[in-house]
């Protein structure tokens, strides 16, 4: 990147917020995606929407590429600049602007950490349900751009279900305001929803307004052991079929259980094939009834142990165990390749089995955990990037897993986004016309293709 151009950028955001030393560039050349990295041309830390708008206008004019970045925790390479462009880091836009208790909305700057919003709204007896495993690190902007889901997705939905309004800087620096605090709004195309899950390719969010709901009064957390994997998977399908909708219905297989227990010491069993972590919430009477129903179904499927958390502390301990599953798995081998295969909920059992068979076929160590209640599984291959043969086998195995996922009517990503990691599977999923529409939208909003190029398709 030319010196004079960097100087012009520094003129907007300030010298101190313009990083070009090789050390900084190296540190903003990765996110949480394994194997991928690169080196941007410059890293900018703007302090306001106005600065972002000016940066975009300048880059647009010069045809310089821009990659927005929150905390860099995404798992699809979405925040890596692969062409020495500008990385636009949002961490300085971190104010919670308003919690509107009359309208039940919260408005935040894009760099606000997800769990910080949780804390603030819960202190007021309100609830913002989306809770990705990374919520202590990820930003609201990143959550919106990836349409992140979380442990409570089954009952409460994902980020998309809560975004009411956005302020977005477009590729040419113009400001676009979509949605707002109104609950009903059918004026024109639903641009809000279009921008959610755009993975930084259509605009840079600066402000986000989300819907809040009342905090559920009661909650029960259960941990259930299953000696047989199929039984655990069937239990998931049967709970849904019985029309019980838990807030959380998470699945951990044997490999994952061992790793989590090694790290978190929460007393998980080491001799079973699978555990389910189930949480029901809502009205106390309903919670009791649901918990009893769930217990019956689990027992019918030969669970070996059924534990109800004694209090909030124990419940939190169990939920935390699930939250660290991914990182705990990474203890086993140096390189962790996590996937995001998502199938209709009735297909959980065959999918889990298929993953295990594929692991055996390619002689790989794959641990599977995930949001089983919404069909979203994370088969995670534990490998070593220094072993090219093993890595090649891992990619082959995932190719087959995704093929099967699509054949079952599932999708290649339930929450992590396409980014660059899953680009090659997208055409199969959305088809030619799907791609044509997406490319048309991209062209209309970003004619020069400067926003996060090379991602999604």
């Amino acid at each position, binding site marked *: 990147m030319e010196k004079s151009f960097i100087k012009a950028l520094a003129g907007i955001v300030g010298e101190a917020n313009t990083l070009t*030393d*090789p*050390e*900084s560039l*190296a*540190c*903003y050349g*990765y*996110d*949480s995606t*394994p194997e991928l990295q690169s080196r941007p041309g410059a890293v900018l*830390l703007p302090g306001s929407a106005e600065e972002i708008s000016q940066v975009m206008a300048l880059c647009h004019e010069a045809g310089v590429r821009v990659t927005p970045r929150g*905390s*860099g*925790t995404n798992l699809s390479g979405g925040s890596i600049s692969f062409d020495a462009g500008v990385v636009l880091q949002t*961490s*300085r836009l*971190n104010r919670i602007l308003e919690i509107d208790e009359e309208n039940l909305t919260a408005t935040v700057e894009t760099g606000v*950490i997800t769990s910080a919003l949780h804390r603030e709204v819960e202190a007021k007896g309100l609830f913002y349900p989306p809770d990705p495993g*990374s919520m*202590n*690190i990820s930003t609201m902007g990143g959550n919106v751009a990836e349409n992140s889901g979380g442990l409570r997705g089954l009952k409460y939905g994902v980020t998309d279900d809560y975004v009411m309004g956005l302020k977005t800087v477009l590729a040419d620096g113009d400001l676009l305001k979509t949605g707002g605090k109104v609950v009903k709004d059918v004026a024109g195309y639903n641009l809000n929803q279009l921008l959610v899950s755009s993975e930084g390719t259509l605009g840079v969010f600066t402000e986000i307004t989300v819907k809040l709901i009342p905090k559920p009064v009661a909650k029960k957390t259960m941990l259930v052991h299953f000696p047989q994997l199929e039984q655990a998977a069937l239990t998931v399908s049967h709970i849904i079929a019985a029309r019980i909708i838990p807030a959380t219905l998470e699945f951990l297989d044997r490999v994952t259980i061992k790793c989590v227990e090694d*790290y*978190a010491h929460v007393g998980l069993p080491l001799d079973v094939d699978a555990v389910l972590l189930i949480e029901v919430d809502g009205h106390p009477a309903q919670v009791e009834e649901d918990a009893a129903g769930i217990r019956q179904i689990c027992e019918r499927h030969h669970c070996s142990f059924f534990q109800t958390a004694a209090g909030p502390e124990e419940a939190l301990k169990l939920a935390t165990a699930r939250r*660290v599953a*991914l*990182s*705990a798995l*990474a*203890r086993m081998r*140096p*390189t*962790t390749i996590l996937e995001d295969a998502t199938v209709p909920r009735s297909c959980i059992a065959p999918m889990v089995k298929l993953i295990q068979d594929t692991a055996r076929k390619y002689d790989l160590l794959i641990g599977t955990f995930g949001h089983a209640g919404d069909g979203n599984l994370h088969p995670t291959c534990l490998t070593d*990037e*220094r072993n090219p043969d093993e890595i090649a086998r891992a990619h082959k195995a995932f190719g087959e897993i995704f093929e099967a996922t699509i054949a079952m009517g599932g999708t290649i990503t339930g929450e992590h986004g396409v980014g660059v990691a899953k680009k090659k599977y997208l055409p199969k999923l959305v088809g030619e016309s799907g791609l044509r529409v997406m490319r048309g939208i991209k062209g209309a909003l970003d004619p020069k293709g400067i926003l996060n190029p090379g991602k999604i398709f």
Partner: protein
Amino acid sequence: MDYVKLINCMRCGMCLPHCPTYKETFLETASPRGRVALVRKLQEGELVESEKFLEYVSLCLDCQACASACPCGVNAGELVAEFRCESKKEKGLSLMEDLVLRKLVPHPDRLEAATAPLRLYQKTGLQQVVRSLGLLKLFPEALGRMEGLLPKLPDAPLRQTISEVTPAVGEEKGTAGFFLGCVMSLIFSEASLATVQLLSTLGYRVVTPKAQKCCGAPNMLGHDLDGLKEAAAFNTDLFDSFDLDFVVTDCGGCGAELKKYGQHLDGERKAEEFSASVRDISEVLFAESEALARKLKPLPLRVTYHDPCHIAHCQGIRSQPRALIKLIPGIDFRELPEADACCGSAGTYNIEKPEMSDRVLSRKVQNVLKTGAEYLVTSNPGCLLQLKKALAEAEPKVRVIHLTELLQMSLEA
């Protein structure tokens, strides 16, 4: 350095919200994930040891909060420290580092002799004169900061005045070896006296071997591995020569180091056994909770607790000190927000990196003030020095004391 340790970092970012320097800067280069990446890229030849590089890695406090947070078992702080050590080994220490870390601190006799003039300086009232005349401004900044940190020193180091054997009160339950630690002995002798008294009140005979040497942590900082091993072997043998049930210390830093002797001496059995016998004072007292509770008298005070890194992150001791404080009748215990975040003292960090140290410290002070506590309890001399000074300036009503001093107050109340 072990390359595998570096590539084990999967860059999940779980450590970021726990890192004090990241919380202050929100910069990836000042985060554990970034630091591992920097050192890794250096090894891979993608970066060189530039001035900027060294500046970035030296901003790490080595507080090990990242290690507690990392689910993959990566210890970014330690990896950075290891790198700094190796780099120092190649480049050699500065004269100052050589003097302080190798020639002075590891030798209690020399250290005590060297601080004698300080005692005199304080005792004669010279300190007051120097301070009030603003002469410190004439000193180089680092020296000025050091001077400013010093509370009033006891008349003599405890190592010289304590008797080698303190008998148990009442029926004897066992014998504890007491590892003093240089700063505790030099500056916080009252807290260490309280430690001895608590142990003896609970029925332990306390043996404080006078010949004991420094734990070796400064040798580690100065990359003097031979010196470290020497200290470890010497102390192991010394304590082994007494018939002890366990070895106790009230210095978090020493405790963390002593528990690593087995490792330092490559798994040698005697050293392993020594390490296994080391207890932080809070561990011993917690095990004696029942007996202790019977002796404690009411203290109607608002108290909060700061977790020293060497206690919480290095030794995993978190619940025991809190439980002990709550054992005192009438205490109003208030949890400190971000209690286990570093206070910015971090060995000599507060002198070498004053700006970041002050930022980290001021966050800690703000958090302490939020609790409304009258007493801030902690259990490491570095934290005591740093926090005493900061609170004396910010809010003199808040007193900073060692855990054993608080318990002692309750015994005597």
